[in-house]
Structure formats: C-alpha cells, structure tokens
C-alpha cells in the first residue's frame, strides 16, 4: 500500500499511537493474516484486523451462516443466513476496506492443507469452534513457524494463548492431548453470550496487530482467562515443555501432519 492523503487520514488514529507509528502501520500494510473460522471469534477478529490496515486477509470456513449464529457472529448480516460464512465475511471486510486483498477458502482446515495454507500468511488467528481444529492450528503453526493466536470461548468467558514457535510454549505444552468430547461442550450445548466472543475475538486481533507491527514484544507464554461475568482476567505463566509432542525437543508431530492425530469433534454452531 502507498501512503496517500486518504490513508494518512484513515489510519491517523493508529499513527498517533507511539508504539505503532508510521513504521508499525507500514508493517501492517505489508502483512497478511489467516483467520480460521468466520464465527464468534473470527467475526470481531476479522473486522478489527481489516480496520487496522492489514494488507491481505485469508478466511477459511466450510460452514454456512445459521440463524443461531447471529447472536455473536457479527460480521454476518441477517440476510446472509444460508450463505457460506467465508463468502459473507469477505463481503463484510470489503465493505469496510475496498482496498483489502481477501482470500476466501470455502473448505475445512485439514491435516492435508493446513501447513500449506499457514505458510502463505505471516500470522494465524484461530477462531475455530472445536478442539480438533484448535490442535490442528497449533501443530500447523509449530511446523510452519507461524505465530498463532489461539482462543476459545463459551458462555461468559474464554481463554487465549499466543503461540510463538521457537520462543515459548504451544497449546500442547499446556494441554498435551485433545480434551475428550464429554469435557468440551460447544456453544450449541453450553450456550454463549455473543459479547463474550466479541471481547476475546477483539483481543485476538490486538495480539496479531501487536505481533505484526512489532509494537510490543510477543506475549507468548501467557495463558489468559477472561470471565466477563465476574470481570476477572487472569494471566497464567506457562512454559515450553521439552517433551511436548508438537514443539518439544524431539517432537512426535512433524510434517506431513496426520489426520489421525485430530479425532473428529462435534461442530459447535447449530
């Protein structure tokens, strides 16, 4: 992107922030982010990433917009019900940023395509709705060296961890195995207040913006839990596990990623 009168104005409030400034903003223009899932977390994350001036954004989602999504998936309008989420989200992004390059992937993220896709971007935001995809994101980030902003959200709160491969723990260092289904209800079972997804998704965008603009050192190793019901935010320091199956000293999980590693989970949104 070129500095013109128009985008000097458009990003003027970013430019005023000392940590970001012109250099940081230029890094954002030149950067690319993949957002996995255009749902409750992906909606705010996508909108704030686009608004911040990221140059290219990829959206991967193989689901269609359902009326039960609309309490939280704010990038989709009511008339998008029945349409592919990736498509509807891309339209929302372009309405906000006509100059944005958008990649739409109307497919599932799989062990077969994840690493290849991650390599096309500078960072990945995980807005998926099930643990097998979250672990797949983690492993693909580790094998490709791409920073990943992991998060999950339910009812009134959620958690977030920025994974910086080679410089801090990954999701498997904290929870080595994919939690069994009975311990991981989705939004359709447990419910969610949409604004909670908004809080966590926007925070994920913030993480990616900081990483890509180099406004602050990467905040790896801090597991955030956010409870909007009690207004309690906790930050748990976590460390890399040398025996971690993904990022440990002799990892089990290497390329090519194996589908067997990610047992299927029930999808969340219906």
């Amino acid at each position, binding site marked *: 992107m*070129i500095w013109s009168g128009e985008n000097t104005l458009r990003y003027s409030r970013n430019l005023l922030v000392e940590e970001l400034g012109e250099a940081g903003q230029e890094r954002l223009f030149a950067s690319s982010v993949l957002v996995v899932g255009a749902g409750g977390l992906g909606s705010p994350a996508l909108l704030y990433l686009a608004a911040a001036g990221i140059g290219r954004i990829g959206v991967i989602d193989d689901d269609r917009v359902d009326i039960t999504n609309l309490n939280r998936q704010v990038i989709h309008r009511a008339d998008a019900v029945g349409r*592919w989420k990736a498509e509807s989200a*891309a339209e929302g992004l372009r*309405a906000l940023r*006509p100059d944005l390059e958008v990649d739409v992937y109307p497919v599932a993220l799989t062990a077969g395509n994840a690493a290849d896709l991650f390599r096309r971007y500078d960072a990945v935001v995980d807005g998926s709705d099930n643990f097998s995809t979250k672990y797949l994101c983690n492993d693909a980030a580790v094998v490709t060296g791409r920073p990943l902003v992991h998060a999950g959200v339910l009812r009134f709160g959620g958690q977030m961890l920025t994974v910086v491969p080679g410089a801090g723990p990954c999701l498997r260092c904290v929870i080595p195995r994919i939690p069994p289904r009975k311990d991981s209800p989705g939004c359709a079972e447990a419910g969610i207040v949409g604004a909670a997804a908004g809080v966590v998704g926007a925070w994920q965008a913030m993480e990616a913006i900081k990483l890509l603009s180099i406004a602050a050192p990467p905040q790896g190793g801090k597991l955030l839990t956010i409870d909007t019901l009690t207004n309690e935010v906790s930050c748990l320091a976590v460390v890399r596990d040398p025996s971690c199956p993904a990022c440990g000293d002799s990892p089990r999980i290497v390329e090519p990623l194996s589908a067997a590693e990610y047992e299927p989970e029930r999808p969340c949104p219906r």
Partner: protein
Amino acid sequence: MNPRATVAASRKAVILLSGGLDSTLAARILRDQGIELHAIHFTSPFCTCSRKASGNGGGCRSAAQAVAVEMGIPIRTVPKGEEYLEIVKSPRHGRGTAMNPCIDCRIFTLRKAKAFMEEIGASFLVTGEVVGQRPMSQRDDALRGIENHSGCAGIVLRPLSARHLPPTLPEREGWVDREKLLAITGRSRKEQIRLAADFGIGDYPCPAGGCMLTDRTFSVKVRDLVRHSPSFGMHDARLLTVGRHFRVRGIKAIVAKSEGENRRLEALCQGKDTVYVSHSHPGPSVALLGGSAEDRLDLLSRILTRYSKAGSTGPFEVREISPAGERGVTVPENPDFKEVGCGLLC
C-alpha cells in the same frame, strides 16, 4: 485447497474468474477434468457491476466469489489499485475505441495471476477468453502478444477456444484432455448459453464483463481527468463514477443525479473535497474542485437553478462541507446555464 487429497502441481491451476458466464464455464470444464483450481479475481473502480451494486460495494466481486465458493474453489480478490491507474493514464499498448487500455490491463492481470500461481505452487493459468469475442484483447494475435509481455507464453489455457489455439503446457503434458475442450469463437454467445444450461448454471449476473473505460461517454470524463490532473489517484477515479461532470473556468463540478448519488458523493468527498448539500429545498449535492471561491459560488447558483427539483425557487440555502469545516451558504437563482452547459463532460 482440495480437502480430499494433496494434488500434484501439474493438476493445480489458477483461474482468472470475473464471475461472468465465460470464466464460470471455463472453471466448470477444468474442474470436471479433475484440475484443482484456485481463483483470482480483480476489482477496479471502473467495473460496471460494482456501480450497480447497492451500498456495500458487492457487485461482480461478490458474483465471482459466489461462483467460486459454490464450486468449493478458494478465491483471492485483488483490488487493482494505484499501479493499475498508471496503466489507465498511459497505456504502453494503446487504447481501444474509448479510454480502455485492454492490452496493458490484461498483461497486468496475467502478471499478477502468474505471481499467485507461483506462490501457491500451481503450474498453469486458465481464462474464460474466447478468440474473437473482444475486438481489442481477444484477437488471436493479441492473445499471443499479451502472453509474451506478461511472461505467460504457453501456460494460459482457454478452455472455451482451446481447439482454435496452439496446445498449451497442460495439453501437451496430458494434464488436461484437449479433445474435451471447446472450439468457440466470435461474439455470439449461443454456445455458452447452451453449455450453461447443460451445467445447470442459471444465474450469471455479469454477462458482458463490463468495464466503464470501454464506454465512450464515460471516457470523456476520464480523458478530461488525465488532461487536467495527470497524477490523479484512486479518490479521483472513484469520483468519476458519480454524477454529471463539468469543467468550467478551471473548476471541476460534480452534480449528483439522485438521492443515492447525493449520499455517495458526500461520503466520497468527506475530509477531502468541498461538497454543497441542499438545505432549503430538494436538490442535488454538488462537489466543486479548484477555481476561485467567487467563481465556485457563481457556478453553484447556476447549477442549483438548473438541477434542483421542479418548483424550487431561490435563493438556495446549502451546507458547504469542506475539510476545513461546515457552514451555511446562500446563493441566488441564476437561470443562465449556457456557459455551464458547454462545460458538461457527461
């Protein structure tokens, strides 16, 4: 990404998808041959479809995306941007009957598509071009020249006309079956419409793949801009798509033609140019760029007299909204429109 299997590079191609019928058919033909397709789509302020679209700037952007997504094909949308405006200003290979720089534009998009092809590890390009359909860029000698200039010689497969063209890399290597490709030529769309019915494609919103630069009337405004502001940018380009344009006494006047255009013009000018919004009566919003303050208000009184809703009488109260701020302005009626009328571009 094909979730079923990782496909060898030789079975992977990039399709230039406009969302119109021809490129949609080309995609279907190649997909049916088992080629893993990735689409790339270009947008520009001069696309006729995005002008028709309501509010959110959807138009043919969304058509291309809808076509791709329905077929399960990933699609990258690339706004052509400032680099493309340089081509519009001075095309190396000349223009068509209007301001359309088709050949340079095609070289530009093929170059971008080739870079995307290399990025994702695909091995050839696919387009919906039909030999002889477009007088400028789709003659077969033009097709070859464009390929050479974009570094794409021999790797652009055009499934709708393939059997009229020399075999391309994927045909020679046997990755696609040339015998199953078509031999359409010329401007008739009969064959495509029949194919669409075969494929069950009922809805093709962008049949002529419209570019405003091929429109002679629109081109009058573009030519004027190139002459008066040779280093114009994307903002000026977007302004071309709204309202009637006049050039009088060094002033560029843009007069919105409908309520919707009023809002669009005001939004486009916000923070950049001075726009006058009717206050005391129903009338057009008017942007005035350049010239002296005195001349601008004189011009405004004539324009408002001419274009305000029938029955409106002066003096006209308007809000002047400029980057410096907002204030009320009153101009008298002035029915002398001759000079302004002569400055009408279109």
